[in-house]
């Protein structure tokens, strides 16, 4: 085979090819990690959207549970001083 009989390349020429082959591996890893990072950020965004939708739905179904609304007073709860005045 004439192809096998090809002489060895000098170091300065062979170096480019060897570097090229190893750079392929590095590029492959970087691209893969980049794609996975994008997917992870998308999953994180969807998770926060889901959390927001759940919070909105909870507020719609139970407005008293909305943040900032006063908690319902149950029998036996101790009232604060002004509320106790009104209760009298």
């Amino acid at each position, binding site marked *: *085979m004439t*192809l*096998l009989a*090809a002489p*060895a*390349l*000098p*170091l300065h*020429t*062979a*170096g480019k*090819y*060897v570097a*090229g*082959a*190893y750079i*392929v*591996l590095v590029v*492959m890893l970087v691209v*893969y990690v980049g794609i*996975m990072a994008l*997917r*992870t950020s998308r*999953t994180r965004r*969807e*998770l926060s959207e*889901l959390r927001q*939708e*759940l919070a909105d739905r909870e507020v719609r179904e139970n407005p008293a549970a909305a943040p900032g609304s006063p908690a319902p007073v149950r029998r036996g709860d101790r009232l604060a001083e002004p509320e106790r005045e009104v209760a009298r």
Partner: protein
Amino acid sequence: MSHARGLRGLIFATIAMTMAALALVFFYAPLDADQGFVQKIFYIHVPMAIVSLCGFVLGALLAIGHLRTGDRKWDLRSYVAIHMSLIFGVAALIMGSIWAKASWGHWWVWDDPTLVSFLIVLLLFATYQPLRFAIEDPERQARYASVFAVVAGAFVPLNFIAVRLSQGFVHPRVLTLTGGNLPGSMRLTFTVAVLAVALLFATLCIFELSAKRTRIELRRLRRELLGDDAVAALRRSAAPS
């Protein structure tokens, strides 16, 4: 939590093994008498190709697990193994082309059985993703993909045997069951390089499996909490869902 800790351990082992392999390749293994410095590509190109082919066979074995049990986790594992093998296979092919150009003067040689058979296997498995994407029903998608993975996986060892039996070699045979003709230092370097690439494959597979499981769990929660319409609105995917 223990899963994440296991992945972290695997990442450290992969980094350590890769560093050891690179050190052996460039500071320990002697220069090849015929090819000189360009032969260093051998230590990355051949392990990538071997791990890629083993990954295809692994994907087939995992697909058998899915067909036997009907459990979708096997389909997910098979999908990830084949996906990763494709990436490794493409990288091996590009590295091989670079090596071919350096040592033979051509980017590609069509009359070499090793090159062409590897390309055929790669093209065969390249149809795996479009096949999955073409089937909308997840159950059918998983079943058909598993059947495909088993048939295509069985093709890999058959292909390997056919190449070994063929006569017109351009690729030299340095690895055989009787020991081959690699000197001891080159053999050690090559073994460490194969282990490093296999560890890299395992790490990336487990990383992707964990990301896919999270995504599937998110979809399941979405379906349970917001109804089927909320999940149907998400785009179609070739990946198991």
